[in-house]
């Protein structure tokens, strides 16, 4: 009698290869280590339980991210934490800015500035920017992970990036003032 290849064990092993990515994304959602580990664990267990719903050939990483995002939102609702979106208003300075200077500011931005800038964004903008620009998901995958229409992802991306640019420019001018 030959035992059948154990597909659930294989699936469990393939989940582990995305552990760092899931952990990293959870880290952007919450800085509490316990909560990060909780979220990632829950995501993997859920994925394992609904493995039969996963369509082979589609993006497993995107599917796992969408489970994590869903679980995170569920917990936010449970804890009655409001996900607040701060009203966006364009920086008045940004209209007349020097384009070449801005490129330089972005190229010179330190990791710390980028981290701070991203963290200062409200979650909906930050997640869109991270998923598309950092994790390299497509617009469609990003929309599926965040469970919003494609158009919403596009507008969150453009607003999120604009806010990040404003922050970086503020950090850039702040540090050069301090040096003078």
């Amino acid at each position, binding site marked *: 009698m030959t035992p059948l290849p*154990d597909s659930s064990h294989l*699936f469990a092993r393939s989940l582990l290869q995305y*552990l760092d990515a899931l*952990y*990293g994304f959870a880290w952007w959602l919450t800085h509490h280590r316990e909560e990060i580990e*909780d979220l990632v664990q829950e995501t993997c267990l859920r994925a394992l339980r609904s493995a039969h719903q996963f369509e082979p050939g589609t993006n497993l990483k995107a599917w796992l991210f969408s489970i994590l995002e869903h679980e995170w939102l569920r917990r936010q609702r449970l804890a009655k934490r409001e996900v607040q979106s701060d009203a966006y208003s364009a920086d008045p300075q940004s209209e007349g800015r020097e384009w070449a200077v801005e490129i330089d500011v*972005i190229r010179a931005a330190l990791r710390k500035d*980028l981290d701070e800038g991203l963290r200062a964004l409200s979650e909906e903008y930050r997640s869109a920017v991270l998923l598309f620009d950092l994790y390299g998901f497509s617009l469609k995958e990003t929309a599926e992970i965040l469970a919003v229409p494609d158009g919403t992802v596009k507008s969150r991306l453009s607003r999120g990036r604009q806010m990040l*640019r404003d922050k970086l420019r503020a950090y850039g001018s702040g540090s050069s003032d301090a040096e003078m």
Partner: protein
Amino acid sequence: MLRCETVKDFLDALRDGTLGLSEVQEVRSHLATCSACGRESEVTEALRAAIRNRVSAPAAPAAFREAMAHLLARQATPMGWFARLQEAFRRQPVAAMALTAAMVLLVLVPLNLQMLFRRETVLPLVEESVNEHIRLTLHETPPEIPIRELQPLPVRHQRRLELFQSLSFPDDSEYHVTGGQVSYLLHRKVLTVTYYHRPNRPITLLVLPSTGIQLPDQPIGLAGKVYWAIHQGFRTAHWQQGPLIYSLVADSDEADLSRLVEKLQHK
């Protein structure tokens, strides 16, 4: 000729590779002739490059990775029947209750056999308590008897509620009962109560008749004779009180669980 607003919209689709060939050509020729859009696109590219090259989040710590590998390896096997049971509970709770009793019989026999071949033996009580905890905390639907909204409860729940109340600590915000239910575990009726210790740190208490359950002998600690175990990454505590066995399951640390053990023993 494309409008600048449209081009802005198309830029991410262009990066995505989801634009049609003619659209790609139109966007390219617009970027070549419109300096505003060209610059905008360049700034966005610089920003994307900065994010990709300089932004990073921590990787999973080694201990956590190891724990997850262990947990997933353990979870991978029993999921077939487990998932099906969970589904059944969602659809038809009453029928599923009867089914559980039958399945517990069917499942426990192979589990016991399987345990003979494991290096460390896991008490069925520990294993089933952890499974119950996972099942309840993963449940999307609220517990059968939500304690927080207990006013308009059907009469059949009234007696169960008295039981729950004897296990709750209304003055203690650290361990507040959120709900519970009666189901079956190890061929026995079991009363399950969920405490929300800290946000997203539920603790499950299971109370079941002790007849036929032998806890391993334990040294008497601060909280009396309590058997502690760790299974699938969850911490469990078990003790006997009169004719009943109490089991607690959580992923809290031992101190947090000890306090609840003491509170329950002195209730």
